């Protein structure tokens, strides 16, 4: 079942994309429960050093304001966001229930650009992303040693996007390319997926175009080529509506918007 169907039952919509009320407000958020909604993000300028600002969004179905700034993609004021997250734990540094992990996709639809002052909230301290950085280009790194096995890598994308997100995608691509160069597999299969089954979140129907799987696959293939993978090994495919996978952050829906790199030794 779609998360959206669990998270919000839309009672009324005065116009397309406008959610008036939902029936889940009384229960309130529970730790580790999945949440997905579309909202107009609010930036709180905590003015507490670089990248210290907070991103907040209110799920209109429940009236709960969430801290959505912990993901790899930050919102843009004046643009709606699709928020998919899990209620996490931690200090309230921004003025909202913390969603962590959280995926934020910036949508094309516009909304009011709203900024708040710090109001006593300290904001976030910038942290190195979970899967880290790549070292500088001149750092000599030996290729991974054998024995080698057939294996997969998954790269997730934001909704309706083929952008390879910084401080996330490059680490996976680098790891895959180095393993491929070391293991010399029989072939490398790059498969792009788009989530083309329509579903409703916050009263709005969401669907990805079929062509997006191809675009995503070609982006990843281009990246692998630029990282020295033998073009003769690459097989590039694209499909729609994949099954969710056990993504490393436990978020099933965003994992459908992915590219899988599979190597056969």
């Amino acid at each position, binding site marked *: 079942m779609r998360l959206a169907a669990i998270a919000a039952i839309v009672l009324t919509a005065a116009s397309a994309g406008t959610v008036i009320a939902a029936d889940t407000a009384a229960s309130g958020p529970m730790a580790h429960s999945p949440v997905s909604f579309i909202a107009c993000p609010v930036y709180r300028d905590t003015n507490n050093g670089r990248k210290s*600002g907070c991103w907040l969004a209110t799920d209109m179905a429940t009236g709960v304001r969430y801290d959505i700034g912990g993901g790899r993609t*930050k919102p843009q004021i004046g643009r709606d966001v699709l928020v998919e997250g899990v209620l996490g734990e931690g200090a309230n540094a921004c003025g909202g229930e913390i969603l962590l992990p959280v995926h934020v996709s910036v949508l094309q639809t516009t909304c009011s650009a709203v900024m708040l002052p710090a109001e006593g909230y300290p904001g976030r301290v910038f942290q190195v992303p979970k899967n880290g950085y790549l070292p*500088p280009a001149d750092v000599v790194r030996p290729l991974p040693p054998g024995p080698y096995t057939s294996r997969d890598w998954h790269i997730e994308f934001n909704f309706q996007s083929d952008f390879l997100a910084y401080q996330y995608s490059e680490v996976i691509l680098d790891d895959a390319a180095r393993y491929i160069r070391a293991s010399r597999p029989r072939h490398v299969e790059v498969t792009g997926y788009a989530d083309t089954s329509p579903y409703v979140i916050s009263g709005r129907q969401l669907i990805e175009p079929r062509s997006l799987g191809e675009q995503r696959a070609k982006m990843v293939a281009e990246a692998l080529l630029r990282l020295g993978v033998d073009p003769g090994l690459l097989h590039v495919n694209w499909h729609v509506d994949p099954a969710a996978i056990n993504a490393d952050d436990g978020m099933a829906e965003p994992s459908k918007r992915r590219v899988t790199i599979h190597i056969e030794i």
Partner: protein
Amino acid sequence: MAVCVPLATSLVGVALSETSARWWAPGADQILPGSLSYADETGVITILNLGAPTSTRGHPFFTPLGPNGRACVTCHQPSDGMSLSAATAQARWQATEGKDPLFAAIDGSNCPSLPQSDKDSHSLLLQHGLFRIARPWPPLEIDGKPVVAQFSIEVIRDPTGCNSDKVYGLPSPHPMISVFRRPRPVANLKYVTAVGYDFEPKNGLPLPIDAKTGRRMSGNILSDSRAGTLEGQASDAISSHLDVHGNSSAAEIKTILEFETHIFAAQSADFVGGLLNEGGALGGPVTLAAAKPGVLKSSQHPQWEEFDGWSKPGAANESTSLQQRTFRESVARGAALFRDRTFLVSDTAGINSMNFGNPTRDGCNFCHNMTRIGMDLAPGQVDLGTTNEPHADPQPDLPLFKLTCDPKYPPHPFLGPVVYTHDPGFALTTGKCADIGKITIQSMRGLAARPPYFSNGSARSLRDVIEYYNRRYQIGYTEQEMQDLTNLMSVL
């Protein structure tokens, strides 16, 4: 043979080259020594030539290779930090009554179709230090392949007449778009070509590889990144600025690259602050030439740490005047402000269009993040707003284009599907709406020797640069902070 090594005078402790050698004329027979110093607006610019001595006789950097009498050195003068200031252009007009090859019709005038003896036909070069750059339409990629333009282009205002010209403009059999840009300095090129990291975060892909050398290309050459290598840049410049038809000689290109990759330029002294490598500071070109390029600023490698010594107790001694000490402390504060003063970076394509969010709070060195040089390791294609409306300052002398994005492509992330611009910048290389108005962040070295600033010369002074940022991002600098930042930029 004239040799400019004998020194006529000295200034704040730096020996200056002879005044008569200030203009390096194409085709002259001279020796470029290991070090050359010239007075500029705020102090002394010094050029280091690590390949010295270099005889200019027959050297392709100094010799006219085509029919217009131009050489590379025409627009890359040592006294101007290997670029060319508007003031130098005016001086050449006066000295030659406009007959210097600098004013060649091809790009040293507002349009080749204008009467070339008329001073007004060269107003953009004389007043703003701008050269005409003719880009093909539809655009060509970095390797010269045609790309599908995601936008159409209309000429809204054409004060030079060149974009509407039947020979040189969009209506011509070979449609061209004329934009007007400042020449980038031919110096410190190991920084310009440095690859700090394999990936380009602005598009998520690894940096492209030069098929000839197998090396990654930095993406930081030229304001629109139309050349990926120094070789490509030299070939482009020889055919366009020097008006040479046909392929350049491989030997000439090799000699040019050998020369220019050994050139370093930086301020070495300030009229008030004195020598920039005294009192605990490490300014000047020697440190710059010796340092490792492609280093990302960090707590271990703070940006402009060269001047941190001037903030420390004991930096001054009994020979340091109050005025000198005050200036040096201001420079050190400017360096700290550059690193630590944060503000909301907003609506800036190439920055906020990544996954950082819009706005995002950060400082000057968020983008100017390569140590020693202030370029962007990313690389640096950013729409700061200097060429795109509504952020651009009024520039009635420049053309204005209306770019309308095809609905099937993503629009400009912050300006929407219709963008008015004086210079589409990087979009003339990629054809992408998202790249309209992006200009590659350039070197911050030797600034005092080569006003005006920004790619379109819209900032007449370093103070104007700071004021533009202050307006654009509503930073709220105090008067003292603006002076500190101006002083910092004047000693780079």
